[in-house]
């Protein structure tokens, strides 16, 4: 199969060996789980339970709100002990609405009936099952999967691409999943294909994962699923990059992949879809890579959603040395954690404890305009110019240079010889612009309110005047009548 030419990208040190060669282990059930109500893109889920209530594993505890949203389920059986704010896995360290479950140790599933043959279901029913299971993009985007399925079916998507590109260094959970549970993934892939009515199915896996390629090829043999090796580079796991590599087409900047007839899902998502459709089991656990130079025994764990990150590190033997930085996600796009007491969510692919040596120098020096960042950018932006304008306080100039197309992949910061935090600049500017946007919307709304108020006060004033005039006229009429009457009486008297 011919692959298409890609642009930009970098080749960071992989560090995959730390965790990739050890089989998946199941984390023993923690005592408490902290399940945030928003683990996806879109509106947060609405809590459906009360404190003190007992829930079963897989029971819905937060309902989907609106079109782009996803429900949240209990990750184990137990008692709800709190519904309130808890530190979120977010760089701000702010709290988010979270449901705390105290495990009863039984880990009992909610009884559900599941179809004997999932392929006998209607495509709509599969999408509904995926939606009810709370499945979101597990590659990290956390976009509700059912929304994508429905959209793709309506758009007559022809090509289904399954993204097995795991380009972040250290992270190997998808690699392990493909090695150990290939046939389950393939079944999930075929279910997705059936649900959207796609014709071609391609699984793109980077060529630096020969074991995963071999097991996936073996599992896909005899099915309509094609397993294709793609070049190993970062960011190969960017869905649009995968689309370009496999189809040679680009997703329009203002559109979605469905606009060019392509649907992309992650391998882990496909696996979760199979669980949801075949067994009626919602997404309550996921594979998480625990790795980094400071972790004693790196590996991949199957973890209930809501487990604290510190529990994962403890299970992996604690730290062999004091980590310089703890990271949620991969080193290229992950976020630094200032506390390990934050819960694992649906989008968490890994937790890392990195040593100072692995992070490398962070001391920034002036930009020498070497344009390494321009060559590395997979999108085709000019990071150095955008950052220079943002630094000078002109974020709008950065927008006209493509800030909104930036995917924050980190390639530019990675290669910068001056160690300039380019992506940090971009995220700052995006936040600033978003705030301005919100301000503008509010301004428009308040202007409308002000106009309405002015109109209303004028109307009231006018009405009052009219009323006053009416009263005056009435009084005059009355007085006139009285006078007339008086006149009449006098004449009568006279």
């Amino acid at each position: 199969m011919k692959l298409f030419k890609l642009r930009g990208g970098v080749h960071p040190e992989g560090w995959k060996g730390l965790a990739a060669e050890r089989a998946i282990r199941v984390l023993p059930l923690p005592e408490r789980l902290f399940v945030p109500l928003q683990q996806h893109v879109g509106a947060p889920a609405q809590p459906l339970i009360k404190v003190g209530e007992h829930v079963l594993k897989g029971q819905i505890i937060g309902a989907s709100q609106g079109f782009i949203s996803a429900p949240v389920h209990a990750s184990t059986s137990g008692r709800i002990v709190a519904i309130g704010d808890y530190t979120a896995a977010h760089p701000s360290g702010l709290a988010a609405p979270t449901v705390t479950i105290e495990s009863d140790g039984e880990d009992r599933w909610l009884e559900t009936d599941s179809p004997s043959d999932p392929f006998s279901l209607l495509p709509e029913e599969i999408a509904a099952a995926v939606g009810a299971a709370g499945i979101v993009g597990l590659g990290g985007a956390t976009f509700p999967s059912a929304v994508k399925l429905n959209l793709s079916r309506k758009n007559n998507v022809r090509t289904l691409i399954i993204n097995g590109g795991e380009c972040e260094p250290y992270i190997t959970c998808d690699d392990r999943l493909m090695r150990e549970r290939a046939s389950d993934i393939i079944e999930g892939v075929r279910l997705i294909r059936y649900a959207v009515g796609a014709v071609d199915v391609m699984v793109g896996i980077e060529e630096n994962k020969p074991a995963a390629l071999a097991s996936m090829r073996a599992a896909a043999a005899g099915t309509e699923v094609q397993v294709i090796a793609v070049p190993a580079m970062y960011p190969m796991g960017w869905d649009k990059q995968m689309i370009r590599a496999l189809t040679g087409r680009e997703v329009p900047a203002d559109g979605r992949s469905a606009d060019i007839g392509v649907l992309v899902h992650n391998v882990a998502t496909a696996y979760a879809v199979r669980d949801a459709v075949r067994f009626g089991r919602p997404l309550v656990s996921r594979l998480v890579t625990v790795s980094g130079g400071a972790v004693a025994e790196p590996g991949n764990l199957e973890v209930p959603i809501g487990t604290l990150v510190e529990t994962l590190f403890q299970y992996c033997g604690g730290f062999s040395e004091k980590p310089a930085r703890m990271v949620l996600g991969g080193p290229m796009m992950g976020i630094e954690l200032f506390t390990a007491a934050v819960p694992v969510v649906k989008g968490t692919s890994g937790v890392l404890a990195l040593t100072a040596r692995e992070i490398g120098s962070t001391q920034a020096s002036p930009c020498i305009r070497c344009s390494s960042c321009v060559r590395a950018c997979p999108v085709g932006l000019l990071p150095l110019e955008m950052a220079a304008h943002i630094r000078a306080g002109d974020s709008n100039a950065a927008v006209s240079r493509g800030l909104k197309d930036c995917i924050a992949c980190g390639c530019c910061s990675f290669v910068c010889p001056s160690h300039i935090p380019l992506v940090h600049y971009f995220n700052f500017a995006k936040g600033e612009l978003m705030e301005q946007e919100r301000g503008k919307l509010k301004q428009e709304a308040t202007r409308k309110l002000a106009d309405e108020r002015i109109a209303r006060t004028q109307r009231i004033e006018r009405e009052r005047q009219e009323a006053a005039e009416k009263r005056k006229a009435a009084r005059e009429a009355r007085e006139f009548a009285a006078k007339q009457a008086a006149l009449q009486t006098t004449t009568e008297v006279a």
Partner: protein
Amino acid sequence: MSEYLLLLLSTALVNNVVLVKFLGLCPFMGISKKMDTALSMGLATTFVITFTTAGSWLLEHWLLMPLGIEYLRILTYILVIAAVVQFTEMVIRKVSPPLYQVLGIYLPLITTNCAVLGLPLLNVQEKSGFAVSLIGGFGSSVGFTLVLVLFAGMRERIALASVSSTFAGAPIAFITAGMLALAFMGFAGLVPH
């Protein structure tokens, strides 16, 4: 033909109106903060200079010289310049209000751009013919536009640089202009006189 081409080259590059003759420095410093504006200003000035060199030559040879009133030269030239600038201003205001806003006071000030008056006067001094005056004027204004745009590009970049406060703004702009003039010295001798 090649003579005119050389004239064009000579007036645009070798004897650049800004960097070699030091005419028109006011808009050169004033309207060179943004590349797009600089280009528009350059084009407006090109229009004005081309027309005034032609117009003033005609007046010189058909009006002033026959009547023997050369002493009114500067007065009449300024009359022509002012009229052409006024006309340009009206056109720009109609065609592109934002540009009109951006050029602001510099648009009427083309009138006092010494290059606009200087070039016709130099033509008289050198007793140039009509074609030479016209092409010389056009070449000079193209050279003006060229350095204005080059300079604006560099100033856009310098605006982002962390120039120390002592030199920020006009001082560093003047230093840059000096360096640009150094670079243009390379064209010296390119066109034999």
